[in-house]
Every structure is written in C-alpha cells, then in structure tokens.
C-alpha cells in the first residue's frame, strides 16, 4: 500500500515535467469507406513503437506521435492501412478480412499478427460475450484450433478439461497456464472450478499460445500452452455505458431412458427363473435344492418378495406405480444475467468499470451457480514518460453443489432405483431404503445442502517508464487472492447424516499468489530495413494455500445446520502448502524489411517444487518467419495477398499439478487409539526434475483476395526430452515395498498433429454479409517410454480399463474384448488372449488394446450472417474418433445382475436358444455364482459427435431509431447452447469424463455423469 502511495506521489511530481519535445498529440477519425460510418474499436499504433490506442464510439482517436511517424490502423473485417501522422485526420478503411494486421498479445508484450513467428490463436472477447455458461473455457469450445475443451459433465461451474496440442504429462498437469493481464493465476479450489470466478464479459481477447516460440517465455509452465486473458481497457472519449440483460432456461441435452415398471418386473421375474436354472444345473446346486423346480420356486419367491418390498405402499402386480426416476434427477432451471459497464477517459486517464450478476441453475436438482463480479481497469499517464495502471477484479461466487458422480446421493444415481417404487410413502415422506433399492437421492433436496462461497480478487498494478519512444521499463505486481468456504450439511435422514443425527463439515481454503514481473522492452526500426524488438526481465512468484476444516455430528434439528449446533465436533485440521518460482526471461525479435523474421526467447526458472540440486532449468526457443508475399514475385499478386512461412523449435517445462512437496520424501501424521502417530507418506525422489518437452512447429499463413480469405496451417511435434527429464509420473511399484508408487520422470511421450483454420468473408455486401470461420485439429498421442523396464501399466479395476502402454496413446483402453453372447446358453463371451477362442470365464479373457479415449480430431465451424440489423451466428463443434467406457455398465446395463433399473437396450437380451443378440441372458446374481458384468468392450462405445454448440439470432436497432432514443446501440438476441447433438453414443452425452476419477490417464469414463446443459436465453444489450 505504501508503495502505491509513493507511486502516486511520484506521479504528481512527474506531471511538472515537459511533454516529449519531439511528439505531439495527433487526432483523427476513422470511417468505413463504403458508408462513411465511424469505426469504433479500431487499433491505432505508432509504427515500431509500443504506443497504441483504440478509436472511440465515434471512430475518433488521439495519440502521441512524432510528425514523421507512421500510424498503423487495424480493425477486424477491414484491410489495414498505414498513414503518416500528418495525414491522420480522416482515415477511411475498406472492408476485407484483416486479422493479419491485428495486434496480438504475447507473453510480456504484444506484436502484430503478421510479424509473429509463433503459433498464436486469438479469440476476441466479443465472440464469446454473453454466452450463458459459467466458465470461459466452455465458451471457447470449438472456436480455437487445437484447443480441446471438454466439460466433465453437466454440473454447472464444475470441471472442464482444456488441452492444447494433446497431453504430455501423466501426473503433472496437462492444463494450460492462465495469465490474466500479465499475471499467472491460480486454479486451485476446494470444489468447483476456479476459472468460473472470472466474468468473461470483461475480456477483450483470449490469446492461446501454442508453440514453443510463443510459450517458452513462460518457461517451466509452458509445456501445456498458455492462455493469455486481456481484459477491456478504457478508451479516451465520451463516457460509454453498456447494459446487458439475459434470461433463459437450462435443460439436459439428453435423457437416455430406462425400463418402465412392466418391463422391469418382467426382466426380474425372468432373471429369477434363469438364475435358479443356472444355479441348479451349472453352479453345483450348493444351496441344495431338491429339484430345478424347487430352485425356481425359491428364486421366484425371493424376487417377488423384493418386488413387494420395492413397491412400498403400492402393488407391483397391479402396476400401480411407474416412476420415471431419471426425470426426477432434473429440475426446472433458469439462467439470468445482468452486466453493466462504463468506460471512457481522456489522454491522461482511461477507465473501464464493470459490474455483473450471473445466476444459473444447474439441470440437476439442487445445483446452482451465482456470481457477482466487478472490475476496475484504470490507466493513468502520470507524466509524459511515466504511466501507471491498475486492473482489479473482485468476485463472489456462491454455488450449490451436488456430490461427485460415484456417490449414492448424487442426483444421477437416482436412475438405479426401481420404477415400481413410489417417490413418497403414504405419509408423504420420500421413500428410502429398504423400500428403495438404494438410497433415494431426493432426500438430499430436503435434508442436505452443500454450499460453496468463493471470494476472488485478481489484481495487478503496473508502472511503466518510457525512457525514449523506443525503450521502456515496466514492472507489474499482481496478486490473486481467493477465499473459499464450503459448508456441507447432511441431516438426520440423509445418507451421510442418518447414523449421527446429522453430519456437518466446514472447509476453508485461502489461496494467495503474488507475482512480480519487471522487464524492459526495446523496439527500434532502422531505415525501415531492420526492426528489432527485445524484451528482458525477471519475475518472482509465490503461492500459498491454507486450508482448514471442522466437522461435527449430532445436530438438534435438521433446520439448525451450522456447526455451532453440532453436539459433537469430531474432526478438524489445517494445512499449509507453498511454492515459489523465480525467473529470468528474454526475447529478441528481428525483422529484415518485414520479410525475414527471427525470434529467440529464453527463460531461466527456479522452482521450489524440485530437489535442491535440480531446481533450475533453462527453456529456450528459436523461431523464424518468411513473409513470402513481401517478395517481388508475389508483391503484386491479386490473388495472394499474404503468405508467410514460419517455424519454431524450443524446449518447454512443466512444473504444475503434482503437488508442491512431491519430491520430498515424508512420513506424515496418522491417528490410532487417540494419539497421533507417524506413517510413511511418500517416497519422494531426490532426482525429480523438470518435466521437459521439445516442440517443433511449422506453420504457413495465407491471405487471399485482399485477405478476405485467410488460412493458417500448423504442423507440430512435441515430445519429452530424453535423459530422465521426461514426464512426471507416479510410477506404480510393488506393494511389497509398502508403497504404491513413487514420483519420477523417466517416461517419454509424444504429441504430433496438424491444426488448420480458415476465415472467410464470403459475402460482403452493403446489407448482407456472410463470413465463415472453420478450424480443425488432429492430434496423435503416443507414449514412447515408461521407465525403460515396463511397457504396459494397466489400471483395469473391473469398471474401467485405462492404461499406459508404450506405443499407445495415454490412457488407452486396454482390457477384455467382448465376444457377444453364446447363442446356445445366453452366456457373455470374451476373447481369450489368442484373440480367437472365446470363454465365458471373465478371468480367462485376454487383454487387448481396444480403444482410445483421446479424440483424434476436433474442431468447429462458425457462420455469421447479417442482413441490415439482423445477425445470425451458428457454431457447430465436433469431436471425433474416441472411445468412452461406461463404468456403470455393470450396474445399469447388466441384464438384471442386481435390482438396479436397466437401460432400454436390455430389452434385447437373450431369451431362447439360437437367438442372436449382444445382450446376455438375464440372471440375478443372488448367489454370486458368476462374476458380475465387468468392464469390457461391451461397455465401450465411440463417442464422436457434432453439436450445434451456439446459435444466436440478434437484431440491432437501426441508427435512426437509436439517435431518437439517444442510444448508441441496442441489440436483442436469442442464444441457444447445445441445442442439438448428433452422435451414435447411446449414453447421456458423449462429452463426458466422470468427475470422481477424471485425470490424465483416467479419460473417457462415464459413470452416472450428468448430460451437458442445453440453454436457451433471451438477451438485450444497450449502449449509450
């Protein structure tokens, strides 16, 4: 605080200084050549300097520039121009796609897209603004080439997997580094998703840094790509206000359907007879039935007894109850949002202030997400050469959560209940076990709550001193504070509370992460031949996480839910985790005649998470670009307006996601008989070092027809460095050691692929416009080495079969191959290891590589149409060629192995000798005579899908009406999210990775995971 005061004081002193002698304030206005309308938001940069501004609502700008300076004007959809500062008063832009001359934010700086020698994908905030999702990553899905986004399930504000160019890690994180206005932010949380704290309507642009040349400046955290988030800044000019309102509803994308009461009863009665016959004839009749008929009678009596029990107060024989439990997992869900912002400023001060409220009901009962956020972005020119600024965002997120997918009390597990069971008993209370087959999750709606309160404050202050127009020194101090409090209460009827008159838990997390960046930038052009842009700096970051929790039992009433009311405090604790990184970084970009471009970057990082001797690592990259279209033989081409070839190679690190202390061997505290004891915790590894990968990238950028059509294609090959700097992995070791695994980086992995994107202005008439952007990416993942000894690590646990196998992709499905049904007796058959012989003994089944949970292709296509004030935007997004294993198959598609209600495919079960079907005979596993259905290809399906991700129809009020109402703009819209999904996957939703086990190896798993959210919202945006 004191430092800021000093800065402010200094600023006052500095105002006494004279302005730059050589420069003056250049003002001008930018308009559309065709209709003469002003173009707000266009970027104006003094060429070869860092001086830049943006036009206001009237297309006007003012900028400090020398008389002989050249201004570079760019705006999306228009061809860029360069004009002399002296001719800047009225600049006209012609339409044409000109993403190439856009300014792109890169690590510790910015550059023109056309001068980039690295692979960076930009998504403008305006493209995703007002998307009714909690997390910006969900809004980016399908929009950026090579950026794979997958929500674990349809719970609101929860886990989202983001992968840039595949997965290079096993036990370290594969998620990108997120940097907000220059400050890396933390993604840790108790529950939910820390990225959902960010109101992405405040975001100006997302830059996804993909290749080594782009990311290496983030060194040890760059291997998974970097997402730079730049928030909106004020622009000089009249104050500008925006108000946005949105309201709509959420629904599940799909319901898969289960048996109705009649079908369920028929199935179970059939299973009873079959089990009796199986037991009597094939399982040795160890129960000692006198005859087959005696066995059938006993089994039937048993099953009918169960049906009676599960029918509660109703009579199953009369089909009195037919409950559709699946429907009851969902609630009527509404979405509402309000956004307001004010921005403006003058040549000294610029501000952007916003406030937002966002409330989304999840589709599952009891699930809700509610966020209030505010932001102040302030830039102040204290003196001609000295400016300071502040970006400050605060948010409060309240969420009502539902349990993870594997908990009996999570809403979706309700589908296991029998359709013959009434929801409530005769006295009006929810039925529960033993009337229900399992705990009835609806009890949670009345008797439990799980609320999460998060306060987040991401702030950054900077000071920048411009020594000359070519050289500045900038320092940034960022702080990311989050405080999260999860309050859980499970009442006397709830699964977790019934034994103890209620159970409550209060958990707190406080995350503090501070960052300092200090760097100098030198930018100079010599005679328009040589251009040089060099950055050199250092950074320090420290993160601290503190958690504390208390839990208690024995509540006097289910209405008294805070822990103060607990009769007995049963547990409590606190812990601290810290990590720190210190870094030196630099970058030099050199251009010759704007044709030949060269870039070198490097970062030297030291991190606390490694052993003392392995703490420091150096991560360099080199890149080169050749703007072929600047060569004489292309310069005058009418077809090819831009052509650039670029390539990069570099070394990247990964130090995130495997814990701050994993390298340190440790004994940890345990408890026994009322005293604290010491137990072995982890083996650690004194040799643990940087997970390093080498990435090669080659790219080609095209522009045709005055850049109305631009395209970009990249090939990359990213693989672990050799020499024991490979992926960080908890290598399973024999349990006989007393341990399950130890952390090491012996393994090597490779990701190679191709990304292609194309942006086209198809029609650009005066009234009708149509543009298309399309992207697709292909990635091939391959494990090259594990530890040198083992080549197959299978984690098959009977439900899932993800494995790590040399030569195969990470998490490959490796397990039992289902061979269908023995047409003679209805047994499930599996292939033995020879791949030909079939067996009905699951233990004799061979193990095969049977599927890949990693999507090989994914992409999206957006079409934007506009006619006068009407706009239509349609985004289709698709993911192709990957396999999902339903871990719950052994329960829900298990031919009545138990009393769980079954999926509808079970109607096709084997019934008579000779019948050809894929569903085995129904047998209730009452006696454990046979192995219950376990994981095999029977429960694996291709997940490929195409989704109508986002469709928006909008109407902008015409200017003449607006001026009467004294409004700048008014836009009405209707947006649909996930309105249609095209897939052969028979589960709820092919975009799935069940949350309780989601990880780098554990992919492609479904387990009562909620379908994704389908939303329809109406909205209004007004600007004045």
């Amino acid at each position, binding site marked *: 605080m004191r430092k800021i005061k*000093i800065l402010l004081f*200094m600023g006052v*002193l*500095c105002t*006494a200084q004279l302005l730059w002698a050589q420069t003056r304030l250049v003002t001008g206005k930018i308009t559309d050549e065709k209709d003469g309308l002003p173009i707000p938001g266009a970027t104006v940069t003094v060429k070869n300097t860092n001086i830049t501004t943006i036009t206001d609502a009237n297309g006007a700008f003012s900028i400090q520039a020398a008389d002989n300076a050249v201004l570079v004007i760019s705006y999306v959809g228009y061809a860029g121009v360069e004009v002399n500062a002296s001719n800047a008063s009225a600049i006209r832009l012609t339409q044409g796609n000109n993403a190439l001359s856009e300014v792109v934010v890169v690590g510790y700086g910015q550059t023109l897209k056309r001068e980039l020698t690295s692979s960076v994908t930009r998504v403008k905030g305006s493209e995703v603004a007002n998307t009714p999702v909690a997390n910006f990553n969900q809004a980016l899905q399908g929009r950026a080439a090579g950026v794979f986004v997958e929500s674990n399930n349809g719970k609101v504000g929860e886990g989202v997997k983001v992968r840039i160019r595949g997965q290079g890690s096993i036990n370290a994180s594969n998620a990108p580094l997120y940097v907000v206005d220059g400050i890396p932010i933390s993604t840790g949380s108790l529950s939910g998703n820390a990225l959902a704290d960010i109101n992405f309507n405040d975001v100006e642009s997302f830059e996804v840094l993909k290749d080594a040349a782009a990311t290496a400046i983030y060194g040890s955290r760059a291997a998974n790509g970097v997402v730079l988030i730049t928030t909106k800044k004020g622009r000089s000019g009249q104050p500008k206000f925006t108000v946005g309102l949105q309201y709509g509803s959420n629904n599940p994308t799909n319901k898969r359907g289960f048996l109705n009461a009649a079908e369920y009863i028929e199935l179970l009665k059939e299973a009873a007879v079959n089990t009796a016959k199986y037991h009597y004839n094939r399982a*040795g009749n*160890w129960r*000692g039935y006198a005859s087959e008929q005696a066995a059938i009678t006993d089994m039937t009596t048993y099953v009918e*007894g169960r049906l009676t*029990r599960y029918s509660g107060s109703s009579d199953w024989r009369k089909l009195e109850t037919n409950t559709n439990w699946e429907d009851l997992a969902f609630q009527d869900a509404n979405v509402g949002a309000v956004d307001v912002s004010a921005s403006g400023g003058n040549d000294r001060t610029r501000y952007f202030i916003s406030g937002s409220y966002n409330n989304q009901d999840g589709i599952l009962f009891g699930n809700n997400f509610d966020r209030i956020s505010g932001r102040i972005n302030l830039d102040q020119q204290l003196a001609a050469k*000295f400016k300071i600024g502040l970006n400050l965002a605060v948010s409060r997120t309240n969420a009502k959560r539902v349990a993870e997918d594997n908990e009996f009390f999570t809403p979706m597990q309700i589908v296991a209940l029998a359709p013959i069971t009434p929801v409530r008993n005769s006295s009006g209370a929810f039925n529960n*076990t*033993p009337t229900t087959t*399992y705990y009835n999750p609806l009890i949670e709606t009345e008797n439990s709550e799980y609320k999460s309160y998060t306060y987040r404050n991401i702030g950054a202050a900077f*000071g920048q*001193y411009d020594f000359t127009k070519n050289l500045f*020194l900038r*320092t940034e101090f960022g702080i990311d504070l989050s405080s999260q409090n999860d309050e859980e209460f499970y009442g006397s009827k709830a699964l977790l509370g*019934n*034994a103890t008159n209620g159970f409550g838990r209060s958990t707190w997390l406080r995350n503090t992460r501070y960052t*300092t960046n*200090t760097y100098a930038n030198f930018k100079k052009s010599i005679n328009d031949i040589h251009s040089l842009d060099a950055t050199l700096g250092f950074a320090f970051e*420290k993160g601290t996480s503190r958690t504390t929790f208390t839990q208690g039992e024995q509540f006097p009433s289910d209405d008294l839910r805070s822990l103060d009311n607990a009769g007995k405090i049963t547990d409590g604790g606190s812990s601290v985790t810290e*990590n*720190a990184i*210190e870094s030196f970084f630099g970058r030099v970009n050199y251009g010759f005649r704007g044709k030949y471009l060269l870039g070198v970057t490097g970062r030297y990082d030291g991190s606390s998470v490694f052993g003392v001797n392995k*703490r420091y690592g150096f991560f360099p990259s080199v890149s080169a670009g050749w703007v072929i279209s600047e060569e004489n033989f292309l310069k005058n081409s009418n077809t090819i307006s831009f052509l650039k070839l670029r390539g990069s190679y570099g070394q990247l690190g990964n130090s995130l996601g495997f814990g*701050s*202390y994993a390298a*340190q*061997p440790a*004994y*940890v505290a*345990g408890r*026994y*008989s*009322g005293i*604290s*004891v*010491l137990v*072995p915790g*982890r*083996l650690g590894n004194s040799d643990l070092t940087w997970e390093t990968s080498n990435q090669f990238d080659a790219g080609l950028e095209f522009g045709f027809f005055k850049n109305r059509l631009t395209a970009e294609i990249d090939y990359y090959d990213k693989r672990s460095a050799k020499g024991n700097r490979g992926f960080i992995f908890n290598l*399973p*070791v*024999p*349990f*006989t*050691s*007393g341990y399950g695994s130890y952390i*090491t980086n012996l393994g090597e992995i490779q990701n190679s692929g191709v990304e292609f994107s194309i942006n086209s202005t198809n029609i650009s008439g005066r009234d009708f416009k149509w543009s298309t952007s399309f992207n697709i990416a292909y990635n091939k993942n391959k494990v090259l080495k594990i530890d040198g000894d083992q080549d197959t690590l*299978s984690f098959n*646990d*009977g439900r899932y079969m993800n494995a790590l196998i040399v030569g195969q992709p990470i998490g490959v499905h490796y397990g039992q191959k289902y061979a269908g049904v023995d047409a003679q007796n209805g047994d499930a058959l599996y292939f033995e290891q020879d791949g030909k012989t079939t067996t009905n003994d699951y*233990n004799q089944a061979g193990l095969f590589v049977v599927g890949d949970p990693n999507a090989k292709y994914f992409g999206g296509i957006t079409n934007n149409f506009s006619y006068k004030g009407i706009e239509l935007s349609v985004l289709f997004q698709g993911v192709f060629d990957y396999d999902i294993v339903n871990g719950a198959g*052994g329960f829900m598609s298990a031919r009545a192995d*138990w009393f769980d209600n079954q999926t509808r495919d079970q109607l096709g079960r084997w019934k008579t000798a000779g019948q050809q079907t894929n569903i085995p005979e129904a047998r209730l*596993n009452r*006696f454990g005579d046979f192995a*219950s259905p376990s994981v095999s290809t029977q429960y694996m399906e291709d997940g490929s899908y195409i989704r109508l991700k986002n469709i928006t129809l909008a109407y902008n009020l015409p200017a003449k009406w607006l001026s009467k109402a004294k409004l700048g703009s008014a836009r009405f819209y209707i947006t649909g999210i996930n309105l249609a999904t095209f897939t052969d996957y028979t589960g709820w939703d092919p975009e799935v990775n069940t949350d309780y086990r989601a990880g780098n190896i554990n992919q492609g798993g479904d387990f009562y995971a909620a379908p994704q959210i389908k939303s329809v919202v109406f909205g209004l945006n007004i600007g004045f």
Partner: protein
Amino acid sequence: MKSKYLSIALIATIGLTSCKKELDLKDPQGLDPQAALATDANIKRVLQGGYDALSSSSMYGGNIQMFADLAASDGQLNWVGTFNTYREVWGKSIITTNPIIRDVWGAGYNAINIANNVIANIGKVAAADQARIKGEALFIRGAMHFELVRFFAKDYTDGDPTTNPGIPIMKQPTNASNEITKPSRAKVAEVYAAVIADLIEAESLLPATNGVYATKSAAAAILSRAYLQKADYAGARDAASRAITSATGKSLLPTFMNNFNQAANTAEDIFAIQVSDQDGANNLQLFYSVDIFGARDGDIEVEPTYLSLYEATDVRRSSTNNPGATTSFNTAFYVKYGAYRTTKWRDLYKNVKVIRLAELYLTRAEANFRLGTSIGDTPLNDINRIRNRSSATPFAALTLNDFYDERRRELAFEGFGLHDAKRFKKTIDGLPWNDNKLVFPIPFRELNANASLTQNAGY
C-alpha cells in the same frame, strides 16, 4: 530529472522485493524419513503407525475377517449388498482386478514395511524399551505375513508347502525409490517358518501387559493360529496355553454379548483394533449392521440355518424381532429387513475384535484333543468353559467335528470361517476345501508392477 531516477529506482525496487532462499520450502505436513526414524520418540510414533496400518479397513479393520466368513458362507451368509466386489468374494468368483482384494495385499505390506523400519532402527530406541518395541514390530510383521499367506496361497496342508508358492517375505525396510525390490514368492513353508520365527521372538520380547498394543499373549495367540493352520497341533496347543497363562488380568467375561459393541477393550480381549469417531475403521459394522445403527443397508444377511447350529437355550443364538436404534438389546441376533443380523458388529465406533481369550481355549482344547493330551486343561473343560458361559449344554464326550462347530458358534463373524473350513477339510458351497477359488488371486496391479510374481492356479 530527479523524479525520473526515483521512478526507475522504484520500479526496480518493486521488482526486486523477492528471491533469496525463497525456493527452500519444506512441507509443513511431512517429516523427512530420516528424521522420522532418528530418535527414540519418533520411532515409537512410527511403531504406533504400524497399528494404524493394521487397523486399515482392508486389514484388521474388518475386511479380512469379513472375507474369511463370506467366502466360507456355505449357504449360511448372504451377501445382498450392491457392491459386486464383495459379492465376488462371497460367490467365489473373484476377478483379478478386484480392488478390495488388491487392497488387502497393499495394507498387509504397508504394515510390514513399517515394522521393518522400526526393526532396522531399533538401536536408536532407548535401551529399556528396545525389547518391547522390537517385539511389537515383530508381532506386526509376523501377523501380516500370516494373514497374507493364508489368503493368497494354498493352504499349508494342501499339497507340498515346500514347493507351493506362498507370498514374498519382506524383511528389509523401504524408504527410498532405490530400495524398491521386485521379490518373488517364497514357498508356503518358508513363509510359515518366517511367521513363526517372528512371533516366537515377539512373544519372548513382549511384556505381559501393554495397553491396547501387542502383548506376550497376543503374539502367542497369533502363533497358535499359525501352528494350527499348518496342523502343528503341539505347537498350537503350547502357544495357546502360553497365551492363556500370560494373559495377565484377562478372563472370560461372564456374559458373552458383553464382548461386543465396546469402545474399550474388555477383560476378554487379547488384541483388538481401537475404533472411535476419531480414528480406526470398522468395516464389519459397516456391512453386517443396518442403517438405523449408522451402517449400510444390511448387506450381509444371516440365514436361519446358521442359527440352527445352536441349541435353543444358547445365548449365542438369542434373537430379537424388535431392534430399535434407541431401545437397547443384547441378543446375539436381531431381525431387520426380513433377515437375521448379527449383533456382534451392531454399533458405530466400536472396537474390532482380533483375538479373544475364548478362541485360545478352543484352540487349546482342539489341539489337546487331536494329540490326546491335556496340557493346560482337558479338552472337555476348555470347551465347556465356553459353552457354560452361554447356557449351552456342556459336552459329555467330544468328536473332532465338535470343535469345528463350536468355533463356528463362538467365533461366528469374527473371521475364522474360511481358515477353519480349510483346516477341517470341509466342502464350502459345493467346492472342496482346497479348490483354487478358495485362494485369492495375486492382484493384477501387483503382477504388473512385479514381473517376478506368478499368478495362482485358477486365475
């Protein structure tokens, strides 16, 4: 100009307020293994950690006792719960990837490693306590090897124990990745020899009383089990007899049911896992009991045929039809949700019995009977001591099978089923006593991690 330098200096200062030793961050929640094993006080805490390992729900915290009785249910126990992993144990159709079987293996070796660490550092323990500490560690190591070998290998009496594969014998501590070995399976006879050697030494080192921790009597009791399982009846008899005599302050409780649902050890407990709402696991309660007592839904039902093992007057078969969470009852069984349930594991947060004095009388009686001896007391006296307490008619004469039946009555649901059935060569659910399905598979993940291991026959 002054302000210019000031502002530059300021920027630089903000940037530089960092670094220096900031990367040396030690885990506040973890103690370096060398420190954990450096002092008398710490090593004693590590030893107590060994009991924590024993108390794992996969080990004496309930699963191995439950598995022994589920596998030997012989139509008298029903698994009706929804977990198919447990149903596989009951149905003898275990798949090699079954995680609850995997975790028995892991829990056993975890405890063994702790014991080995204590033994390797015993020289740092105060001289006066060395015998006791080492004795406790040997007790843990011996007991764990014994539990693992009798689940994961053929019975000692099945074929040739000197050639049948047992389990790896672990005697070296592991504290670092370079200490990890890939041991192969020792022979069954070798494992028993190691178990017996550990327990004999433990018995000699341990004190007669030792709080809730291992005593001379506890070591002798596990030793008697090992001898009994290998049909060394003289060894079993003598160990059981020593366990009885060295059990200072221990006696049979007058009321059978007062053994159970106790938060503290009773006079009859030789060794028990301590469970409270703070620590310890009791999976027997979780699965045998019902929801009104804080358990699951009553996953294990007792068939009426089990009750028919008892005479009508036997308090060990007493039953109530009206159990309530609030009404107290002390019958051996209760009826809930249409089936009998054992009361032994009714209540939440109560100790798990590992060794009760009653078992030792039954073991001594059986071994004396088989050998025609009366060391300690006559077989009739010993067995009737148990029966009289529960108002069962005393035996006037004995057959060998009486011991099997009496153990089933007295020690029901306490983890003896499978092991006793193998000893008495009983047919179990239609399977011969030495059927491959009555031996657990070596866990799939362990075979993957250790190429030196071989899978059991039948998997």
